[in-house]
């Protein structure tokens, strides 16, 4: 089940719904580069629960038709520039959500049920723009208790980066259990890892508690430094200079193209 990075990117078909974690939770940045190199098109991105640099790269490279997320943010680097431009020009469809609605939708998929009820959200304009979110009267109450139902979110593919896999294909994610939720909910889970360890994480209770069993993992590619430049908790920090350089370059479409030629397509500029 271990394959090369470029091959892993080919396992994400055009028009797939693709679930990705936020910048702090293990992003498969090198795999996203490979996805852009293969000129993937019409993705539906699902930020779990938000999108950051990898979402902006994909949008800038023209790979994305629509986005569902509770937020699109580069943290202290501000608003993702190619996302903001795409919204202004109406080039991508945006399904604004709220964090727990994304988690709840994935939980419904995890349970194999059509929807999940959730408190709150009533009175928000989010609801008015989400015809797929329904409000019903609590069927177990005495009446007059409206509650929102969120449809199951079953991504075609979940893609993320983790510290290590073992020889059986189990993936250790530590405390980042939203990655576990993504793997449970998605039809296919593709993971890049720093390394493969010659062991079985499931035989060690300490490791097993933070391990996604191979049952949920479709394919693994080894990509040392695979989360650069956003960083991987416990392994290496964000490359703040590289992130700032991206944000500066991506303020214009032309700047983004030049950045991508160098950082993604590795074209030597004169």
């Amino acid at each position, binding site marked *: 089940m271990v394959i090369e990075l470029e091959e892993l990117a080919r396992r994400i078909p055009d028009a797939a719904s693709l679930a990705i974690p936020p910048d702090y939770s293990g992003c498969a940045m090198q795999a996203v580069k490979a996805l852009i190199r293969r000129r993937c098109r019409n993705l539906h991105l699902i930020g779990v629960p938000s999108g950051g640099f990898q979402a902006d790269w994909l949008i800038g490279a023209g790979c994305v038709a629509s986005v569902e997320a509770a937020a699109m943010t580069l943290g202290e680097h501000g608003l993702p520039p190619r996302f903001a431009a795409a*919204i202004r020009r109406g080039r991508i469809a945006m399904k604004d959500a709220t964090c727990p609605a994304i988690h709840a939708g994935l939980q419904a998929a995890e349970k194999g049920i059509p929807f999940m009820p959730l408190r709150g959200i009533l009175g928000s*304009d989010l609801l008015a723009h989400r015809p797929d979110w329904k409000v019903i009267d609590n069927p177990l109450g005495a009446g007059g208790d409206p509650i929102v139902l969120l449809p199951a979110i079953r991504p075609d593919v979940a893609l993320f980066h983790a510290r290590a896999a073992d020889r059986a294909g189990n993936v250790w994610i530590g405390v980042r*259990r939203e990655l576990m*939720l993504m793997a449970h909910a998605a039809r296919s889970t593709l993971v890049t890892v720093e390394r493969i360890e010659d062991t079985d994480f499931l035989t060690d209770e300490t490791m097993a508690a933070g391990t996604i069993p191979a049952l949920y993992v479709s394919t693994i590619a080894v990509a040392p430094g695979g989360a650069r430049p956003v960083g991987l908790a416990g392994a290496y920090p964000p490359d703040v200079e590289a992130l700032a350089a991206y944000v500066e370059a991506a303020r214009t479409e032309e700047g983004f193209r030049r950045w991508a030629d160098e950082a993604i397509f590795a074209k030597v500029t004169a």
Partner: protein
Amino acid sequence: MSAARPDGVSRAEVMIGAITRMLDGLGHVAVGASSPIPGSAALLARALSGGALRVSLLGSRRHNPFTDGGRELFDCAAQGRIDAFFLSGGQIDGGANINLVGLGGYPQSKVRFPGSFGSAYLYHLIPRVILFREEHSPRTLVSKVDFVSAAGTSPEGEFRPGGPHALVTGLCVFAFEKAGRRFRLESVHPGVSPAQVRAATGFDFAAAGRVPTTKPLDRNALALLRTDVARQVAETYPAFAARTWGVAAG
């Protein structure tokens, strides 16, 4: 943004002081993304409580107890395990509605903000939601938000254990009057007049004839904030801690 005032206390520290007092006696306070001023207040309140206050600071490794993924904060809130939380907005209106989505139309907004995050949910469920916005201007504090990310109030009888408690800005503190569904000017920061607040606010609000000045932190609390607490804040908000106190993580 945190230039020292003549009394040596920065505007950020005045806001932190006001928020810290609102957390007195609570059991569990959570702090969301991009919230350095509330985060500082929560960590200071914890230090002043002798550790009785539990603080869950998102984005922190050392001050974040959650082990069950992104969902846990939200489940925790729905169960009533979180007493206070903080929200901001690109726009906040007089009905305490907040806009984190954008200006000038939707979905093709002229100015897009990051998005609603957990606001649409947490605003309904956490009893004491403290709104904060350092920029106090008619641009940020408006009569009606362009997009309601999270509604300030709900129809009578609707399940709503949570909601707005106060709005802390760079100029003043507003309390939210649940019955009247409006803000009341609670105090003005040192050197600020009520008339100045009125001119800088795009929504109408109630005010007493004489408005007190926001109480400053006492010397002990201020010293704690600038040393131990500043170093804790620096772990999650290094740029803010460096700018405000010249302090690095420790």
